[in-house]
């Protein structure tokens, strides 16, 4: 059974320690942009290779 709401003012829990951080989309720059492009290339290469492998019948 869910417990009723208790008086939480007794204990000091900082309010802002619970607040989820605000998220905004980042625009990759510099090395981060390079990293994302490297990731795209890695994924593309791996997907192509896996597709070739599956089409030939892996075991």
């Amino acid at each position, binding site marked *: *059974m869910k417990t009723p709401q*208790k008086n939480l003012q007794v204990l000091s*829990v900082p309010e802002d320690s*619970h607040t989820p*951080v605000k998220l905004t989309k980042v625009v990759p720059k510099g090395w981060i942009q390079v990293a994302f492009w490297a990731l795209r290339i890695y994924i593309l290469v791996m997907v192509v290779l896996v597709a*070739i492998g599956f089409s030939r019948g892996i075991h």
Partner: protein
Amino acid sequence: MKKTISAVTPLDDTQIRAEDQARVAALRESRGWRKRLMLLLTLIGPGILVMIADNDAGGVITYAQTGATYGIGFFIPALIIGGFIAYVVQEMTVRLGAVTHRGHAEMIWGRYGAFWGWFSLIDLVVANVLTLVTEFIGITIGMSVFGVPPIWSALGGLVLDAVILLVLRYRTWERVSLWIAAGNLIFVPLALMAHPHWGAVANAFAHWQVPGGFTAAFLFVVLANFGTTIAPWMLFFQQSSVVDKGLTVEDVRHGQIDTALGTLAMVLVALAIVILTGTVAFGRPGASNYDIQQIIQVIGQRVGPVGQSLFALGLVEAGTIATIALTASTSWAMGEAFNWPKSINLPFQKAWRFYIPGLLSAVLAAAVVLIPNTPLGFLNLTVQVIASIFMPAAMLFLLLLLNDPGIMGEHVNRKWQNISAFTIVGLLVVLNGIYGLSVVFPKWF
């Protein structure tokens, strides 16, 4: 503590979580070693769960086959290194979750956009479903030792998973899961029952060398062990668990201890399994090709029926705890991606969109295992290939987020953490790439 709806139930889970946080705050303000211990016991959970669940049915089978094939040697020190790697990675999810109060999927969607969000979500859900298949395989094989037909053992695992997820709020769900996870330690006394040659174990550290040379088969086993030590779902699970548990920046230290304890247990169990089969199965004709049923049989012959039963129970437990973790991981990721109510604290009526994806994934996996002539080996292979593509991406997002002062503030990665983490990412990219290629083009190796 059971979840219900009352007339004063808040619409979100933050106030429900506030009760747990108030309890922690009270313990933190108390003095004495007993209160300190209570605080630790209250705060541990996500780290131990994720690490123990990492010793899933597939992991148990991999470690057992590794010991049967290579004996006590290379992999003993290698598993310890694997544990360190797992700790470095998972510790970052503790900080990320405690500081941001957002899950991993949520962070990727919010920070890097819908493309990477969808990429991560689809990879995670597909990989989780396929991994769940291996968990139910482990559960059915383990229970078959006791004469339980697969349909009943699969149904039993499913029902247990669903009941504890739907009925219990987070705190109790976590405690029950921890008790189930404790069963993973069964392999430690079992290894002792095999009377291993401790000199051989010591020798494994003194003379660390590649057994039989660096062959393709050896590479395959190395990658399989590495792949089972760290998996994408672990990043998502632990961070979401930290958030749902309500940990804050004040709890990061305990979260690190929690992760370290989990790592210790994980490595201990992995070592125990390798030592066990390295002692009882290694050197027997055909041991390098033993499947798990044959290994169980050999354990029965060498350690006795009690040993066989304990191993089977351990396999069932490994599958069960991983099923619980993977189901929760899928639910959390879906809830975060689509901004649904996403807490185990919430009753089904308020968060059905959160619960259904995870439970459906388990139902699907259980059904696949029960279908006759399902190409289970092919499915297992697919999981590993997906992971080889997905893991580097998941690690990169984690590192980018941990180095983002805009969201982490003073809790960004320190230099040594970046050196360790980037080295691990580099190693993962190379190993995962090679592993994916070795699976798809075995003749190249």
